[in-house]
């Protein structure tokens, strides 16, 4: 038989190496190409949403910049003409969305005020919103601290999570005084 890497013995060496250290023979054994984040069964072309050679998934519609005729870009001219919002009508979810996406804007404060009205409190150090669990009374008070189970809003996973807290109530934000900011919003 051929006694070097160019015969069956050479291939056998690869196969055995693959069993002990797959990293060793990635080139010869290859990898599962369907696991590279591309939808290879797609009827449509892939390149219009290709996220790039180092992205693990295709670009989402919101990642892609489409050429829009400049006359479509009207947000500058209409922002004073938008209708007023009545935040009371909206659920917590939307209020959190407005709080986290309108940074540096009056809308952020307005959402915070409405959340405050609904018994959410913003912890100035932890930088999270927490609230007591409805119906639960076993909160231990001790001076300015309070211990018990609260909901906090997990912005990364975008949901409420139950958690044991020991809260220093002096660190809880006051309700923003919207009037003091004098903008007439709600």
């Amino acid at each position: 038989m051929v006694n070097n890497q160019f015969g069956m013995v050479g291939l056998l060496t690869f196969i055995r190496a693959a069993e002990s250290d797959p990293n060793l023979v990635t080139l010869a054994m290859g990898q599962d190409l369907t696991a590279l984040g591309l939808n290879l069964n797609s009827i449509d072309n892939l390149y219009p949403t290709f996220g790039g050679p180092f992205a693990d998934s295709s670009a989402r519609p919101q990642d892609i910049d489409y050429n829009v005729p400049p006359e479509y870009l009207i947000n500058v001219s209409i922002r004073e003409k938008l209708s007023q919002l009545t935040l009371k009508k909206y659920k917590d979810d939307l209020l959190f969305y407005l709080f986290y996406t309108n940074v540096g804007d009056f809308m952020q404060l307005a959402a915070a005020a409405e959340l405050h009205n609904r018994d959410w409190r913003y912890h100035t150090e932890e930088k999270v919103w927490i609230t007591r669990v409805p119906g639960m009374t076993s909160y231990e008070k001790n001076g300015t601290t309070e211990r018990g189970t609260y909901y906090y809003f997990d912005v990364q996973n975008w949901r409420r999570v139950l958690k044991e807290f020991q809260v220093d109530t002096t660190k809880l934000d006051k309700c923003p005084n919207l009037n003091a900011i004098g903008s007439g919003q709600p």
Partner: protein
Amino acid sequence: TDIEDPPGFVDKTEFLLKEWITIYHTQSRDLIKSFSLFVSKMNLYGILKGDEPLIRFFRHATQYCIDLTYRSLNDPNANQTIAKTKIFQWIDAYVRLIALLVKHSGESGHSATKLNLLNKVLGIVVGLLLQDQEVHGTAFQQLAYHRIFIMLFLELSAPDAVLENISLSIITAFCHTFHILRPSIAPGFCYSWLELISHRVFIGRILAMIPQQKGWSMYSQLLINLFKYLAPFLRNAELAKPVQHLYKGTLRVLLVLLHDFPEFLCDYHFGFCDVIPPNCIQMRNLILSAYPRNMRLPDPFTPNLKVDMLNEITTAPKIFTNYAAAIQPANFKKELDSYLKLRAPVTFLSDLRGNLQISNEPGSRYNIHLMNALVLYVGTQAIQHIRSKNLAPNMTTIVHSAHMDIFQNLAVDLDNEGRYLFLNAIANQLRYPNSHTHYFSCAILYLFVEANSEAIQEQITRVLLERLIVNRPHPWGLLITFIELIKNPAYKFWDHDFVHCAPEIEKLFESVAKSCM
């Protein structure tokens, strides 16, 4: 660059650049009007008086952006995301100025001025990048250059009547730039480079929107740049993490091309495989698996598939690489042609190995490019020769010819390494149903059945099997050839020792056989 700047020129540039950045960010709605005012100010400052001041302006303005980038990125207190946003706000504005100048320079019908300007700017950025890489070495930061190139390309690819007229020239200018900045020249820029040449807008333009596929050959050149850069690092059995990452990115790009532009991979497969190391089996398979979208492949596992009844096998595939020109030196080509014509002198055969061997260094004894070109050239000549006798290539018509003399001589005369490369060159032609696939499939099977030593049969099996055991995809021609080899009793495949040389090998054959039979 060694001509001194006129006094105050750098300050003027900086002033103008800052002025433009402010305009860009505050007067976005009627930017065009502001632009024309700004141009008159540039003129006032003498920037537009001629090529030399303009080039000087661009060089200093670009350098300013790059310095800003290094300052921001190297600021330990700065939040990286905010730093990048600030850099981009600056660079994007500068790029918009370049794009507007390109678009509005010269008479609207004359593209030469526009392209001149574009090439000058690209040339300046290239020059600064290469200089920067030299100066900073491993501390080189690619961010500013990446941003300038991609944003300039996006600006010049926006739907616009003037730009549409020169879109082929624009893409050519960028291809030329990326070719100059290819990873082997600018390794510090290699990841950005791959990101740029595989950006969806760039691929869309060069492979889909440019009519008559005029962008394809340029794009193939860029891929060859990439493969050549990767090759020395892919020869190692163990890939370092940076190499693995670039390789994986390359696979992603090839998958997009395989899915969206299979014809492109088909047409340029020879040039690609010619620069991919033989041990990169999956990546090479990926390219060889491409087949034209309008073609329906018969299931290679169909019992009693009559390959020679398929009418696709009479059609030669397009090959856009001039492989015949790769057969050097010229007198060797001349001798080859005369041997193919006259089947003499016999000494040509005995000298063949000498023409192919370039050293005695194991692993790099042979001129792989010459081997690949020779095999494909001889094969295509063989097909023509058989056709000239109003015959079709098959197991009987391919024998007893000068062409098969050459193949048999290579199979017998080369050492294991040479034979492995020779058989790889043949296996690289086992693709989708076409006349090359059919001829080379017959040829390799004929070499197997006529082999006068088991080593030849073993290596044929090795070359085919290693291409089959790798993860998918697998080329159609490879499958049908291997199935024929193990099913047709004429080859007595299962009688050979190397089939049973180890339990793992035996198991492999059984699993492949099971899936085939």
